[in-house]
């Protein structure tokens, strides 16, 4: 099977030359034409290898239509002319311009335009999206488009990368902004409402507020003052917009108005959620050079400076500050309880006591905070995208190690407990145990790679065995392996095994355990590795039984010939080898497996070998007895001869006597 043609995706969508259309959401986009129906209002967005597309969103939304939102249409593997293979999400293309370009600031929008052309259509689209259980997480000024003046805006694509990965901190709630870009998780539709609220302010003032601040300073400002006050406090907004934005930028997602309510701005404006501002201390506490006045900023400061935070926690400075300066003895008692729990000998033994203490204390101080683990903040549903980002050169933060330790420890459970009823603790624990189990699975079917592929159904296979091919679907794996099979001794490595195991939901784990054992310990009971490899390849070939894989079959034959050594009978072994070689010449992997993987024949061979062994033993015993019998036979022969001679003598004597008597 040939590699994808240059300029084509799935053999259906042709990449068109010319300017890239809008709506790629910050990723490389190309205009395409659907050759089945001639449709040209589509675009292909290229997915980065370490930031897989949103499989659930693409799968659920493909074929659906939501007004004023760029919807995914399909996905597939293709090749940009002159480039390497890549994975693309096909989606609707957008015309017009982005609603706001910081490089070319435009005039502020009026209240009516904001409500009619931005808020209402976007809220209706988000409401429709929320009904599918999916979030957008890419609402920002350069990903919301205006086809023409006076028209409703269109929300750009958000499906070709992890949720919220390309969002600037400005458009994200502070708790999401402090996370690793790939670890922000799916979030909720309230996060989209937040981003829409920020966009409302940006268009109302005609500028990005607080653009001069760094990402950390922006988060700190939002936490200290509240998002609305931090972003819009120094600007004079129209009263209706201010009321709506205040609600949309509430720190607690539960306090933000749902999209359906925003579709009726008057009703949304009238809804006021009484959110108490966080209590402010009488005097600040210094944490890593940051003057902290309230509990949630304290949590953020402890995350930024974990060593200082731990020292203050263990030294009881934070406890006394919470009791005396902040006047919250209840919170102080809960933090103190966490500090005492950190003395658990098991945690100390595992070396994770400090990290768990910090995580628990941050979650206690600020129940809205994400999991803060080893200088890495994440939401547990972002583990998959984070695992994908952790590989290769992008693993500068030791993300892989941090994620592994995060899942292997009790961090998720402690975080869930500290969050109380804000998360579904049962679901959280279930997901965590499943992920941890994937890490614990021995051999090639488990570990970090298995976790990565398991949590990212659109993650391409990263094995060097597929060359520069982009393999996302299991059905594409054999063609890629076939193209590079001749240069390899073995056709399956740990990455390919993890990829297959994830896509087949662990149905070939026994074979992968055999392969890993043979690789790690350099032990290969005759042909077990070759047979395990052939079983995997044949399992993949089942989807296209008529397809031939000559290169794979030829490469696999070396290992399979060793497997034929399991038959002890030369005749049967020769017969099997003959059949396997014939099948290999034809490139028929299934026929090869059928010839060599024959338990009944093997069992019969074993039985016959046992019979042969028993027969050989009997014969050798008989040979040993023959020497002993030879002496006995000679004695019998001698005795018999003497008896015969005596008989002859008697007969002769009788004859002589009779003859003499008669003569």
């Amino acid at each position: 099977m040939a590699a994808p043609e240059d300029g084509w995706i799935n053999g259906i969508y042709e990449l068109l030359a010319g300017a890239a259309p809008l709506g790629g959401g910050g990723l490389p986009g190309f205009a395409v034409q659907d050759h089945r129906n001639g449709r040209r209002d589509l675009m292909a967005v290229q997915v980065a290898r370490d930031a897989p597309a949103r499989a659930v969103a693409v799968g659920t939304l493909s074929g659906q239509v939501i007004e004023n939102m760029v919807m995914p249409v399909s996905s597939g593997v293709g090749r940009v002319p002159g480039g390497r293979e890549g994975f693309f999400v096909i989606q609707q293309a957008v015309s017009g311009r982005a609603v706001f370009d910081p490089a070319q600031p435009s005039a502020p929008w009026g209240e009516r335009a904001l409500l009619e052309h931005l808020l209402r259509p976007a809220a209706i689209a988000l409401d429709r999206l929320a009904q599918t259980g999916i979030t957008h997480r890419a609402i920002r000024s350069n990903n919301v488009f205006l086809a023409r003046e006076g028209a409703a805006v269109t929300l750009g694509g958000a499906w070709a990368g992890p949720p919220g990965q390309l969002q600037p901190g400005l458009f994200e709630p502070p708790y999401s902004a402090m996370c690793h870009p790939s670890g922000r998780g799916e979030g909720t539709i309230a996060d989209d409402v937040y981003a829409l609220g920020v966009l409302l302010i940006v268009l109302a003032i005609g500028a990005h507020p607080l653009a001069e601040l760094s990402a950390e300073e922006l988060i700190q400002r939002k936490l200290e003052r509240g998002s609305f006050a931090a972003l819009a406090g120094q600007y004079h907004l129209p009263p209706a917009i201010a009321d709506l934005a205040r609600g949309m930028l509430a720190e607690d997602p539960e306090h933000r108005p749902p999209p359906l309510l925003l579709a009726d701005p008057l009703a949304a404006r009238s809804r006021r959620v009484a959110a108490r501002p966080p209590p402010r201390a009488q005097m600040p506490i210094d944490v890593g050079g940051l003057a902290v006045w309230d509990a949630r900023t304290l949590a953020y400061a402890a995350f930024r400076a974990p060593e200082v935070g731990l020292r203050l926690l263990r030294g009881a400075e934070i406890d006394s500050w919470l009791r005396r300066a902040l006047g919250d003895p209840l919170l102080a008692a809960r933090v103190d309880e966490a500090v005492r729990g950190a003395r658990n000998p098991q945690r100390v033994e595992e070396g994770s006591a400090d990290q768990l203490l910090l995580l628990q204390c941050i979650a206690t101080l600020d129940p809205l905070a994400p999991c803060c683990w080893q200088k890495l903040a994440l939401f547990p549903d972002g583990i998959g995208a984070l695992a994908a980002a952790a590989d290769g050169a992008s693993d500068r933060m030791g993300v892989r190690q941090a994620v592994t330790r995060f899942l292997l420890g009790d961090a998720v459970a402690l975080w869930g407990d500290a969050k109380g009823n804000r998360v579904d603790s049962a679901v959280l624990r279930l997901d965590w145990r499943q992920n941890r189990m994937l890490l614990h699975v021995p051999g090639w079917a488990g570990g970090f790679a298995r976790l990565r592929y398991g949590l990212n159904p659109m993650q391409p296979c990263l094995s060097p065995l597929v060359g520069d091919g982009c393999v996302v679907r299991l059905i594409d794996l054999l063609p890629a392996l076939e193209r590079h099979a001749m240069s390899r001794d073995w056709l399956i490595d740990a990455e390919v095994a993890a990829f297959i195991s994830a896509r087949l939901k662990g149905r070939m784990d026994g074979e992968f355990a055999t392969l890993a054992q043979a690789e790690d310990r350099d032990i290969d009971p005759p042909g077990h590795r070759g047979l395990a490899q052939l079983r995997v390849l044949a399992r993949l070939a089942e989807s296209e039984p008529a397809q031939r894989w000559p290169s794979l079959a030829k490469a696999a034959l070396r290992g399979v010939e060793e497997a034929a050594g399991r038959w002890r009978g030369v005749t049967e072994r020769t017969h099997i080898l003959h059949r396997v070689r014939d099948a290999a010449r034809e490139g028929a992997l299934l026929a090869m497996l059928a010839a060599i993987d024959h338990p009944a024949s093997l069992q019969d061979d074993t039985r016959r070998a046992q019979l042969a062994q028993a027969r050989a033993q009997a014969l050798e015993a008989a040979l040993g007895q023959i020497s002993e019998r030879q002496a006995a036979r000679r004695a019998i022969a001698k005795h018999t001869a003497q008896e015969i001679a005596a008989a002859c003598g008697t007969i002769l004597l009788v004859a002589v006597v009779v003859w003499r008597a008669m003569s």
Partner: protein
Amino acid sequence: MAGKKSGKKFAGAAPKSGGGALTGIVLPIALVVGVIALLASGALPALCLFLPALLWLCTEQEPGRPMTRTLLLFGLVGAWDSLDAFWHVGALRPADWISMLDIRALTRAWVAQAMGWLLAEGLALLMAFQADREIGRARQSYQAEISQLRAEWGDGVSHAADDG
């Protein structure tokens, strides 16, 4: 106790003393009488005729003395004429002894006994050869079958047998 012991000793010694009396007194007397009778009856020539058989009788250790038996039978065949003549003459004169022991009669008797020996030994040789041939055939057959099993199932088959 002492009485019992002495009783046992006496009980065991009685037949021994009886056997001693037999070999010490009766047998020499019987031998002397037998020799006198033999000489008187003229059986000495007969002993000469059967000398090979008598010598064999002294040297053969095999139970039942089968070779002696064969020699005697063949000796009887060869010496029948002499014995027949002796039976009819019944004389004790030395001249008759000489006529009985002429060289031809002696030769006939001894050749007949030699023929008996030759027949017994020849047959024994022939039958041993036949037995060896059968055993050799069986050995070849077994070895061929083992080789065939080795060729089909590998050396492990017979090695396992060796281990066993």
